[in-house]
Each structure stands twice: as structure tokens, then as C-alpha cells.
């Protein structure tokens, strides 16, 4: 019974998903919105309930399969907030969705449950199953607008590359099991040093990293990101950008620091290289983009690079910075995609030309998009600035031990400068773009989306001005991971 209580948050999300799926069968289309709001309210209750958990150290359930600590709780709250915004976004744009609204809601809830399981995975089997729960539901969510060719194309690409990465992941897990004879994180952590030298174990861990890299959209596993981001429905893209990436990072951090600490030194150069390449690739490829969703796809690759710098420092400060960065990135990306969703609904396009004159058609949308872009560019006092600042500070501190971090720092700073160009290109298109033959009537934003956008903007500002509350939570989370 105690096991089920520890797993209560995920269980509640799953039950909500199942209930939505069933309720949707017997309600009228008018009540569909109410169903969505009901699901969001339930997630809100679950979010509040997460503060009732006060884990003293790490608590295990189901024979060590499942771990609950502050680190897991931090990410669970993160995923729950993301889930609430995504559901709000999908309810607000519901009439644009074909297929069933109820199915969209329940699939999103299942993906959310999978992400929350990722945060608590303490066994390679649970790691794989929870990641697959996320990925398989995303195959459907990406291709949800099944009469739109772009959506189907994105789904096929995501399916093929996702299946490939899953194959790497499960092969890696098999190799680790072959080398050590266990899948349990605690047993892996307490293996004798002689076993840790096994080459098969390294190879398995490397394959594991490939699988997680796909989730994070880090170079060289990034190839799917721009196409899928462009083709998928906006609410799915937002969830993919935030949830899937964070799921990769939560698992990477746990495997790196709690499961196989021997990898910390082995993977240092790998992590640094991947971080540098991700920033360089994301930033350079974003320059010529004219589609906003594609731009955010490349930006997400660059952001994976910044996050990986925080992870690569292998310090508590770096991990805390990464956790804070993710929180800021969450609200920023959500604000951007709320605007994109509305613009897409009205113009059917998401390129820069369709943004022209947006500040006259809807000042709120223009302000929201500007907030998001300025935060992504890393301008104080918004959340994006403080996240980048913390990551770079951690890298600077790590540079004392390993000079390679100075190079990484250089790449990161140059990346920030280049990214100013394209992020402000979006702002320029919004305020100074010349509208073509488009109808320039005002855009009415539905109230759920208005609420979501206002909340996201307040959160971006609040995180930037008062970062302490989140960094304190992040520090607590990192401490429970055993990082000094």
C-alpha cells in the first residue's frame, strides 16, 4: 500500500487520463471544453498534492524500481505545470483539432504520466518503459491532425528516428545488464571497480546516452527536431519541446550522478563536445529560418547545448543552473507556442510575414511573443537571462579544474550574440514588418489562451526578478541527488 501512496501522483494522472477517455464517449461537443477544464483542474489539485510529499532522503517503492526524492518531485511539478499549460492550449484551440478532443487530452495525460515516471525511474527497465510511454504517445500526438500532410510527415519522421533511438536505448540497457547482471540503479552504483572497467559497460552506457540524446535533441541526435516541431500541432510541439527534453535531462542527471558515477569522468569530454556542437549547430542553423516553429526547433537544439553545459560541469552549481534553466525555458517556450497557435489559426501560416502587423492586430500576442523572444535571447531581467547567467557561472567555476570549459564558455557567449540576431528578427517582424495582402483585422484571443499567456509572461518576469525561490528548490533537488 505504501508503494501505491509513493506513486500517487502518477497514479492520479493516469486515472485522470482514463477517466477523460471514458467520459468523452458520452458527452456532447459543448461539454468537451468543460472536460478539458476539469482535467486541468485535476492536474492543479495533483500539483498541490505534490507538496504533501516530504521525502526524507530517497524513498523506494516496488522493490527499488521507483524512487521518490526532492529531485524527482522538482521534475514532477515541472511536468505538471507543463501539462496544465499544454491542456489549456489544446482546449483554447480545440476547434482547429480534428480527431477527438477527448483523445488528445487523454493522450497528453498519458505522456505526462510517462514523464513523471521518468523522474522517478530507479531501474533501467522502468527507465525504458516510461520513456517509451512518452515517445509512443507522442507519435500519435504529433500526427494528430491527420488530414494535414505536414503533420503526418512529422509523425512518420518522428516514428522512424524515435524507433531507431529506442533500439539504441534498449541495446545499451542489454549491454549494461550483460556486463553487470543488474538493472537496478542502487546495485549498479555499488558495483566493484573491476566491473566498472568493463568495455561492454561503457558501450552500453554510450548507447544509453544516444537514446537520451534523442529525447534532448542534442547534436548529433537532433535531426528530427526542426521537421517535427514544424509539422506537429502547436500544443504538441510545446509539450515536445519542454516535456520530452526535460525527461531526457532528468534521466541523464540521475544516471550520471546516482547510478554510474564512474561515468562522470569518462563522459566529461563527451558531454562538453555534445554541448558545444549543439549550441553551434542550433545557433547557426537558426539564422536563415523563416518559419517560427522551425526557428524554435533549432533554438531548442541550442538550448539543449546550454543545459548540457550545466550538466557537464558535474557540480551542484551546474546541475542547479540546468534545473533553473529548464524552468525558465518552460514558460518561455509555452508563451511562444501560445502565440504561434493563435497566429496559425488565423493565418494558417507561421512564417515571419504572417507576423507582420501583429502589434496592431493583437497587442497581447505581440507582447507575449516579444517576452518569449527576449527571454530566449537572454536579456535581463527575464528568466532566460538568469538561466544562461547561472550556467555560464558554473562553467567558469569548472574552468579552474578543466581549461576546456573556457572554450565552451566562448562558444556559448558567441552563440548568445548570434542568437540575438534571429530572436530580434522575430520582434522586428512583429512590430516593424510590412503586412502584405493579408486581412489586417484584429485577432480575438480566447480567454483560456489569454489566461495562459498572461500567466506565462508573469512567470517569465517573476523567475527573472526573483530567481531565489526556484534556485532554492533546485538546490534542494540537486542535494538529494548526492551532488556536492
Amino acid at each position, binding site marked *: 500500500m505504501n508503494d501505491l501512496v509513493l506513486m500517487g501522483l502518477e497514479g492520479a494522472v493516469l486515472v485522470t487520463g*482514463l477517466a477523460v*477517455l*471514458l467520459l468523452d*464517449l*458520452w458527452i456532447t461537443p459543448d461539454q468537451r471544453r468543460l472536460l478539458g477544464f476539469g482535467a486541468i483542474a485535476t492536474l492543479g489539485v495533483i500539483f498541490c498534492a505534490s507538496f504533501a510529499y516530504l521525502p526524507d532522503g530517497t524513498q523506494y517503492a516496488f522493490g527499488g524500481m521507483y524512487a521518490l526524492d526532492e529531485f524527482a518531485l522538482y521534475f514532477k511539478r515541472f511536468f505538471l505545470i507543463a501539462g496544465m499549460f499544454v491542456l489549456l492550449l489544446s482546449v483554447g484551440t480545440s476547434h482547429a483539432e480534428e480527431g477527438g478532443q477527448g483523445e488528445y487530452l487523454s493522450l497528453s495525460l498519458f505522456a505526462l504520466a510517462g514523464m513523471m515516471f521518468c523522474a522517478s525511474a530507479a531501474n533501467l527497465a522502468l527507465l525504458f518503459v516510461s520513456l517509451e510511454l512518452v515517445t509512443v504517445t507522442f507519435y500519435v500526438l504529433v500526427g494528430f491532425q491527420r488530414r494535414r500532410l505536414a503533420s503526418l510527415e512529422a509523425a512518420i519522421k518522428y516514428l522512424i528516428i524515435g524507433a531507431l533511438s529506442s533500439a539504441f536505448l534498449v541495446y545499451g540497457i542489454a549491454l549494461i545488464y550483460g556486463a553487470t547482471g543488474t538493472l537496478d540503479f542502487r546495485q549498479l552504483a555499488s558495483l566493484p571497480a573491476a566491473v566498472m572497467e568493463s568495455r561492454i559497460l561503457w558501450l552500453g552506457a554510450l548507447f544509453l546516452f544516444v537514446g537520451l540524446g534523442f529525447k534532448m535533441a542534442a547534436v548529433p541526435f537532433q535531426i528530427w527536431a526542426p521537421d517535427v516541431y514544424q509539422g506537429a500541432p502547436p500544443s504538441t510541439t510545446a509539450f515536445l519541446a519542454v516535456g520530452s527534453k526535460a525527461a531526457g535531462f532528468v534521466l541523464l542527471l540521475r544516471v550520471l550522478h546516482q547510478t554510474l558515477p564512474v561515468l562522470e569522468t569518462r563522459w566529461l569530454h563527451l558531454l562538453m563536445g555534445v554541448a558545444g556542437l549543439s549550441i553551434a549547430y542550433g545557433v547557426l542553423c537558426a539564422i536563415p529560418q523563416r518559419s517560427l516553429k522551425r526557428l524554435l526547433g533549432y533554438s531548442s537544439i541550442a538550448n539543449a547545448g546550454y543545459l548540457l553545459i550545466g550538466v557537464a560541469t558535474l557540480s551542484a552549481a551546474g546541475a542547479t543552473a540546468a534545473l533553473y534553466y529548464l524552468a525558465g525555458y518552460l514558460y518561455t517556450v509555452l508563451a511562444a507556442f501560445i502565440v504561434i497557435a493563435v497566429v496559425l489559426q488565423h493565418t494558417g501560416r507561421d512564417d515571419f510575414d504572417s507576423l507582420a502587423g501583429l502589434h496592431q492586430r493583437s497587442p497581447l500576442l505581440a507582447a507575449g511573443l516579444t517576452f518569449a523572444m527576449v527571454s530566449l535571447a537572454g536579456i535581463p531581467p527575464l528568466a532566460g537571462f538568469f538561466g544562461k547567467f547561472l550556467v555560464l557561472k558554473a562553467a567558469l567555476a569548472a574552468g579552474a579544474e578543466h581549461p576546456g570549459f573556457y572554450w565552451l564558455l566562448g562558444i556559448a557567449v558567441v552563440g548568445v550574440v548570434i542568437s540575438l540576431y534571429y530572436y530580434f528578427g522575430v520582434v522586428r517582424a512583429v512590430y516593424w514588418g510590412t503586412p502584405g495582402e493579408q486581412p489586417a483585422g484584429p485577432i480575438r484571443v480566447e480567454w483560456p489562451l489569454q489566461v495562459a499567456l498572461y500567466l506565462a509572461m508573469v512567470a517569465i518576469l517573476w523567475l527573472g526578478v526573483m530567481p531565489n525561490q526556484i534556485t532554492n528548490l533546485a538546490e534542494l533537488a540537486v542535494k538529494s541527488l548526492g551532488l556536492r
Partner: protein
Amino acid sequence: MTEQTQSYLFLAVLLGVAVAFPLVMLGLARLWATVYSPAKPGPAKAAPYECGLESTGDAWVQLRSGYYLYAIVFLIFDVEALFLLPFAVAFTSLPVGAFVAILVFLLLLVEGLVWAWQKGVLEWN
């Protein structure tokens, strides 16, 4: 030669035989065909065989893809049976927890069936 390499030699010989045997057989059959039944194609002989009837229409007809739904719904019952059988065999010695667990599992599958039913997947049109 050590014992270990000898055992690999055996595998190599086996592989050689496995490849050679069908090749020899196929070669013999080919030789037999060219000697005793050389190909003499004609319009009647080249026509597709349809139990003696005149063949009509194109062979590239499209089949309904609607069947895939039945395959998926079948999976519900298929997987169910897979777990129910060992459950039934060990039923008397199982604790209450196991009974509840299998009940939850069954309810999940039933929900899938109810959903498919309500969505009209089981109606043929």
C-alpha cells in the same frame, strides 16, 4: 590444433555443406528442366491460372484497410488470454493483491474495448 578451434572447424564444415547442398539440388533441377522440358511459351500457357476460368480484371485491386482495426481490437483479447491463463492456473494460491492487480488489468482492457465500441470501430460499413 586446440579443441576450441576444432569445434569451430566443425561449424565451418557444416556451413559449407549447408550452402552446397541446396546449390547442388537446384543445379540438378535446372539441368533436368533444360534437357527434358525446354520452355515453349504461348498465349494460353502464359495466362494466369484461375481454376480453368478466363481471368478478368486487374490483379492490383485495393483491399479494404478497415481490417486493421479488427487486428488491434483482437490484440485486446489476445493479450488478455496470455495473462489470464497462468492467472487461472495459480488462482487458488494467489493473495488478494494479485486478484486486484489482474482485475485492474482486465478493467484497463475493457476500457479499451468500450472506447472502440462507442467510437463505432466494430460497425462495418
